């Protein structure tokens, strides 16, 4: 977790990547096998056309899958392992898209006096018309985005740019999806005589919209309520003690919208930023493992008392002061500098009864 390090492989990452690569290889092989069988018109596509269709459709399916992982993990935590290595899936998608680009360049844009890359940009520039729109340009735009995202996917760039900027850049994956969708809609779909491709595109878009709406609705609840101001300045009323379960976090939103996670551990309360220093993962949805807050996304850990990652790691997050007012938990909304030690608040014996774990969602 230092500012730069090479990919730290582990068994989970290896299995994840092996399954993803195997799925892609099978997809391409299956496509080429069935695509080469002459259809009812008795005309089989040539090898180059099959390759570009196989790689192109595979990249679109992968992109749809990548965009589904986030909301799926929000709706069902069992999908969180898919989130863990999602960046590798992104790089794989970019590689598959590169296969599509290479197939197109070496067939449609080859054999002319123009270099293929130049031909790619000048052969079709019909952007002023909807029918026959220059769909190639949309594909070029999507591929450029995928290249940028793949190139900046390493933790070096995450540390260099910071989680907020890095995440903002990587939200461009939605733009890439929209461009790919347009690329297909104005391209392959115009020639398709079978509804299969149209159905696949519609299912992809509908699934993504529904998943994001459902996850957004759930997230609006889980991201916490705004904390009202307490009678004493500058404190805000975070929650009642009983709302915080042992070993878990409770998320509350400060008046400025900043989310804070309050953890209950062995009869004490501690508050830290809800945003993981790695990728802004929701720490309040994590767990306490070996006494450390553990991010549900990538397993980054922070000590309760000072928000520092245990050595040798160096990540730090902001801590917050807490105070009890009877059964209420008050929170000072002014964040301490990341890594500041704050004494945990001891829960009085009268409020020690933990919430039943089995009632947890």
């Amino acid at each position, binding site marked *: 977790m230092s500012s730069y390090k090479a990919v730290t492989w582990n068994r989970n990452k290896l299995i994840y990547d092996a*399954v993803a690569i195997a799925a892609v290889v099978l997809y391409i092989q299956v496509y080429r096998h069935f695509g080469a069988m002459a259809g009812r018109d008795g005309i089989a*596509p040539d090898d180059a056309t099959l390759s570009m269709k196989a790689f192109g459709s595979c990249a679109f399916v992968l992109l749809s899958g990548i965009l589904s992982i986030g909301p799926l993990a929000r709706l069902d935590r069992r999908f969180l392992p898919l989130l863990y290595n999602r960046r590798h899936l992104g790089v794989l998608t970019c590689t598959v898209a590169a296969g599509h680009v290479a197939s197109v360049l070496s067939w449609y844009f080859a054999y*002319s006096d123009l270099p293929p890359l130049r031909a*790619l940009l000048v052969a079709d520039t019909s952007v002023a018309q909807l029918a026959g729109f220059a769909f190639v340009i949309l594909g070029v735009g999507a591929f450029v985005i995928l290249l940028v995202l793949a190139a900046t996917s390493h933790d070096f760039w995450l540390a260099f740019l910071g989680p907020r900027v890095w995440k903002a850049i990587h939200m461009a994956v939605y733009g890439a999806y929209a461009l790919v969708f347009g690329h297909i809609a104005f391209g392959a779909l115009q020639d398709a005589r079978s509804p299969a491709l149209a159905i696949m595109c519609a299912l992809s878009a509908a699934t993504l919209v529904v998943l994001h709406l459902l996850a957004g609705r759930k997230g609006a609840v889980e991201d916490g309520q705004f904390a009202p101001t307490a009678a004493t300045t500058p404190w805000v009323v975070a929650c009642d003690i009983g709302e915080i379960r042992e070993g878990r976090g409770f998320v509350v939103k400060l008046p400025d919208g900043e989310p804070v996670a309050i953890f209950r551990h062995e009869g004490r309360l501690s508050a830290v930023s809800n945003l993981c220093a790695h990728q802004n993962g929701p720490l309040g949805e994590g767990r306490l493992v070996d006494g450390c807050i553990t991010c549900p996304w990538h397993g980054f850990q922070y000590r309760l008392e000072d928000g520092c990652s245990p050595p040798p790691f160096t990540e730090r997050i902001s801590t917050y002061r807490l105070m009890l007012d009877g059964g209420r938990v008050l929170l000072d909304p002014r964040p301490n500098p990341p890594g500041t030690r704050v004494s945990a608040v001891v829960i009085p014996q009268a409020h020690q009864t933990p919430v039943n774990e089995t009632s947890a969602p």
Partner: protein
Amino acid sequence: MSEHNDTFFIGWSNDISAGLRRFLMRAAAFVVVGLCVVSALLALSITDPARSLFGANAAPDIPLDVTLRGVLSSEPYPFLLTVGDAARPAGHGVLLSGDGKHAAVIDRAALGGQVVEVKGLLLKRGALDMLVLSESPRVLQNIQPAAPAAPVPMGRWRVVGEICDGKCGAGIMSPGTGIAHKACASLCLIGGVPPVLVLTHPLEGRQFLMIADSQGRALDRGVLRFVGMRVAMEGEVERRGDVVLIKVDTGKLRRL
């Protein structure tokens, strides 16, 4: 790890609960099998956009190396009207092109109207014949060209079809038509490969027409934005051998 929740996943830890491991194995199997099914369905749905345009002879023939003899016409594009032999009747039109996305390299001024022998790879799809020259045409000195037959006017036609290059359309690419092929066809036309209009519905037995501007000259680049899609056009039509040429005002082409 005593506090490790049963379903809580920590990527760097190899400690995964049996329940989560089962779930992930099922998810992996679903993804792999699901991708294969999607792949097969999409692959089986591929069709040639021009499959119905070439009638019963929808599929391109296997390209063959051939030697042809005929009268070379140079306008609006190089094409050969065969002199007639055992394989082909006299007056059969064969379009000519060069290698790749290039025009046939022909000294039009010197060879136009001459009886020549040409060699190359013959692409054939339906009635559309395209010869990719492998060497320069050779003038047959011992055969005097007949007086050039005058084009036979066929009146004014209003037709619907797709403009594509005669080479990919003849089957060098499969599919060699359609919007996905638009950029490729455009590069072929820029390179000088003769364009053809593949008719949406055969007209008087014709599956394709050679297409020129209203003055009978080669089309300019303004036509490129109409390539690869259904267009309607109107123009004077004439027959040269068994090749039918339509002369259109490209400014009046209409996308459908």
